[in-house]
């Protein structure tokens, strides 16, 4: 090791250390950069992030229509078996038989929020919602029915 390399080594080292200290120091002297939320106190105005995987929901539009065709791909893909779909035969005006969902059952207590159901749904009927307050007093209430009462399939989803 030559002497010039040795000395430049020291100075480079010191400069890189100072760079690191600048980062932490700048955070320390700017307390408003703190990202922690004081949760129970700010519950009313708490804003969660859009991408948060809080629970799985089935979005309905204003006419109480959803996009689920009852194909059962989400049920097949779910690794924990937390989705169960109950379908029935629907006869349309022109006499065609069609499948429609009766109940889309989602057991949040078994869900690991892996997102496979959302990812594989061919008609994009499922999505994540940022709600995270799931504590309930009985296990039965962890079983949810995602399609709303009296909802029907949106027109044009099924070819």
């Amino acid at each position, binding site marked *: 090791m030559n002497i010039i390399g040795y000395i430049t080594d020291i100075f480079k080292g010191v400069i890189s*250390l100072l760079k690191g200290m600048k980062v932490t120091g700048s*955070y320390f002297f700017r307390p408003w950069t703190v990202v922690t939320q004081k949760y129970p106190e700010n519950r009313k105005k708490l804003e969660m992030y859009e991408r948060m995987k809080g629970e799985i929901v089935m979005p309905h539009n204003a006419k109480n229509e959803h996009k689920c065709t009852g194909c059962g791909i989400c049920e097949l893909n779910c690794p924990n078996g937390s989705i169960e779909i109950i379908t029935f035969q629907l006869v349309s005006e022109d006499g065609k038989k069609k499948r429609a969902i009766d109940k889309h059952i989602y057991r949040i207590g078994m869900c690991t929020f892996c997102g496979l159901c959302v990812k594989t749904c061919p008609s994009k009927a499922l999505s994540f919602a940022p709600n995270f307050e799931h504590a309930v007093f009985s296990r039965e209430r962890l079983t949810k029915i995602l399609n709303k009462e009296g909802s029907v399939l949106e027109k044009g989803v099924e070819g």
Partner: protein
Amino acid sequence: MIFNIYDFTSFTQWIDNLLYSNLSPFWALIVEMTLIGLVFLLGYALVGLFLVYLERKVCALMQNRIGPNRVGPFGLFQTIADLIKLLLKELISIKHSDKLLFNIAPFIVIIASFLCIAAIPFAKGLHAMDFNIGVFYVMAVSSMGVVGILIAGWSSNNKYSLIGAMRSGAQIVSYELSVGLSLITMVVLAGSMQFSTIVEAQSDGWFIFKGHISSVIAFVIFMIASTAETNRGPFDLAEAESELTAGFHTEYSGIKFAFFFLAEYMNMFIVAAIAATVFWGGWMPLHIGGLEGFNNAMDFIPPFIWFFGKTFVIIFLMMWFKWTFPRLRIDQLLTLEWKYLLPINLINVLIMAFLVLMGWHF
């Protein structure tokens, strides 16, 4: 007026005279030592608890968090709650461990840091023991802590503890050299090892300004080496959580663990206090030679505020290191000491001696 916040000499003299006039010399000495011991014990606990709180708060802010904020205003009583928890916890005895050494180790560590405090001048006249070799005494006593750590590691009958303790031994033996040499650099400038003389010599400018280049290098080296000596991050190999669980205090629980914890924080305080005394003038206010008005204005702030202010600035600096830099490997640690700090330090002592000989310091 006996009690004067600018000069405690008359106050301590008054207590001394009061005790010696009312008691026999033997009992007066005993009472005096007990009083000082009690004051130190109380200060030790309070400063230790506050430092733990401060560390958590500083660390949190550097990581964009809030830190303790539930117990008391701004979480101020969090560490007291922690202490109560530690006091109530079970002291687990380890099978096949060396019971005597296992129980003695935390006390050795804590006694070593206690002995150090005795030599630190907190304010004018507020000084438990003014040794004429104060700097030497502090260096000698502070290296006693490693004996406690080695004993703790050995007696625990645990591989993690033993490896942690051995690393700590290698580390402290190496970095002791740098601490000593950087302090010797300043002793060369001061011409004395007595803390009171060192502080008085800085009445017309702190040593870090007086010795310019050489002092600044010595200060930086002292900060690095003393951080390593107190086993704090980025040199906390002795307890490297990710690889050794907790190093030498893996097997300790309850109040014995608290002793190690407290000793670590007090060692940080002591090291910062020594750095403040030797480099930044201790309790001496900021004086610039020749500016009478400015000096008088600075004298208005009481000395103990100066002392604690400087000490806490240096403690903040050490926390800043800890929460910025990643932990070193053991070979990197030894390379840093033997290939970089030691040669620089030796040259720095020579430069300082040259500066003093030629009278090029202020």
